């Protein structure tokens, strides 16, 4: 994971060529000049790969940030305040959730193109619906816990309770969802630009795949063209999901406290 971030940050120094510049002859095989060869325009694939990581990572984390942040906020508000606020918010969520995300994105992308980042925002917004639902369910079960009652009994303000009591308790959940969200959005972002919806000015892995597909690299079996972005993506997504899964036990306090509980009761 760290490796990916590092690569993304240092991409401009590491890349031997400008990815948009034509630096060699078309469809060169891998060699010392061009580590992974070149594409049908003669652009250096290695540089494209390195620089592409930037857009992909940014896309994923931006989307996840929006969805986790907004979703948690909405979920906490809706779950904690209850009553009419909750009914309105959760009712709206229920209805909005049935709208399929990808087709909507596709429709919107025609309008918003080539604003991939705008799309990413929309995606985050849509993702926050699911997030809000999950958080809300958690907050609802938390709100009936004694400690929230006790906090109300102390005379603490609602906002104080939300920040000091509810938020820390849902934070692990939010964080793990954030990681999975990042993974999901990266794949989705790459997928979208694979479908040719990307910004032609920005290089990302999906675009590379798109070029492979439309440029005939696939039919020619030029593995050096499409395998690197595939592997890069798989590696990134795998590391993110491993991180997420390994943090998942951290989610349930029972698991965290199980060992402790042994001493308390038999």
């Amino acid at each position: 994971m760290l490796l990916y971030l590092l690569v993304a940050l240092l991409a401009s120094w590491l890349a031997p060529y400008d990815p948009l510049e034509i630096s060699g002859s078309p469809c060169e095989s891998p060699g010392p000049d061009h580590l992974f060869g070149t594409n049908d325009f003669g652009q250096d694939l290695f540089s494209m790969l390195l620089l592409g990581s930037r857009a992909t990572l940014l896309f994923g984390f931006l989307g996840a940030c929006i969805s986790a942040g907004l979703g948690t906020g909405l979920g906490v508000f809706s779950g904690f305040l209850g009553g009419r606020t909750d009914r309105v918010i959760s009712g709206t969520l229920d209805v909005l959730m049935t709208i399929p995300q990808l087709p909507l994105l596709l429709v919107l992308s025609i309008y918003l193109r080539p604003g991939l980042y705008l799309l990413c925002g929309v995606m985050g917004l849509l993702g926050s619906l699911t997030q809000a639902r999950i958080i809300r369910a958690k907050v609802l079960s938390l709100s009936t816990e004694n400690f929230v009652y006790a906090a109300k009994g102390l005379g603490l303000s609602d906002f104080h309770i939300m920040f000091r009591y509810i938020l820390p308790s849902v934070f692990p959940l939010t964080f793990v969802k954030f990681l999975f969200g990042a993974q999901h959005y990266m794949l989705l972002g790459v997928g979208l630009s694979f479908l040719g919806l990307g910004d032609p000015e920005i290089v990302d892995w999906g675009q590379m795949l798109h070029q492979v597909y439309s440029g005939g690299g696939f039919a020619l079996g030029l593995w050096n063209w499409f395998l690197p972005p595939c592997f890069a993506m798989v590696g990134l997504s795998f590391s993110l999901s491993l991180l997420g899964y390994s943090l998942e036990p951290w989610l349930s306090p029972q698991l965290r406290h199980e060992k402790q509980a042994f001493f308390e009761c038999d």
Partner: protein
Amino acid sequence: MVLEIGNRYILRRFFSGLLAFLLSITLTFFLLRSLPGDYMTDLLLEIGRYAPPELVASFKHEVGLDLPLPEQYLLYLTGILKGNWGHSFEYGLPVFSLIREKLYWTLVLLLPSSLLSAGLGMGFGAYSGWKNGSKTDAFLLHSLVFVGAVPSYCWGFAGLFIFSFRLGLLPFGGYVSLPGTEPAGLFRHALLPVLTLTLCSVPGIYYLMRNSMLDTLGEDYILAARARGFSESRILFQHALPNSILPVLTMTSLHCAHMLAGSVFIETIFAWPGLGLLTYSALETHDLPLLQGIFLVDTLLIIIANLTADLLYPLIDPRIRSRIRGE
């Protein structure tokens, strides 16, 4: 049984589904009309360049563009309910019939792969949870986490590369529906896309099922059943399995519905003549009416999947049933 869950509950579910559908329709309507670069204006401008203004006006009148917005909306709404979903730019055909034809081919892919992935995911998940801590469990968990981390299009590429390109066992795709096509050909063409779709949705279901199984096994009634001397297989099938499937059910139906979205990538890669490929070509040609039609169909399918899960749930879980009755 259905009567037992109460008509009110069913009605309410239907109502919320309908609401979502109406919302999608409204959304597409406003996208169509109000955003800059909207296609009607473009179209009219284009016509206006060649056609006399009277013709433009009559066209406007025909399509209903000279009416006030609410009436336009109403017209659009009734049009959609009547099956008049507009005409595709690219194909020049009514969107509705175009989609109907392609939907069939998409379902040919979707149905087997949803059944397969639900079955495999639940089966592996249940087994993995039941044998928690064993080597099989660890192997399944790690391999499926990996499988889940690889995006569908990568699997598509890999499948094509290995089986079609290198081994030459299976066709590259591009199934053409000819009358009298023999089932073997259909099978050969559909095999890879179905497998790829399945591969992508198994890990999600598997993981949910495994967690749910682990939770269930920690419950007291499993311990109590053991204390009563029930055999392990009986505990698994009578107690552990039904209880652990419950929370997975809703997610599975949603998962299957969302496979529809995933099929865009798969069908594109395998050149399968279904909705996904249609979407791709619509995207390339910016065929908006078609895209909106596809969007509506997708919404409808997801709503149906949701509804199925909602109606299935109370049939299985008595707790939900009595809560509904309480309402």
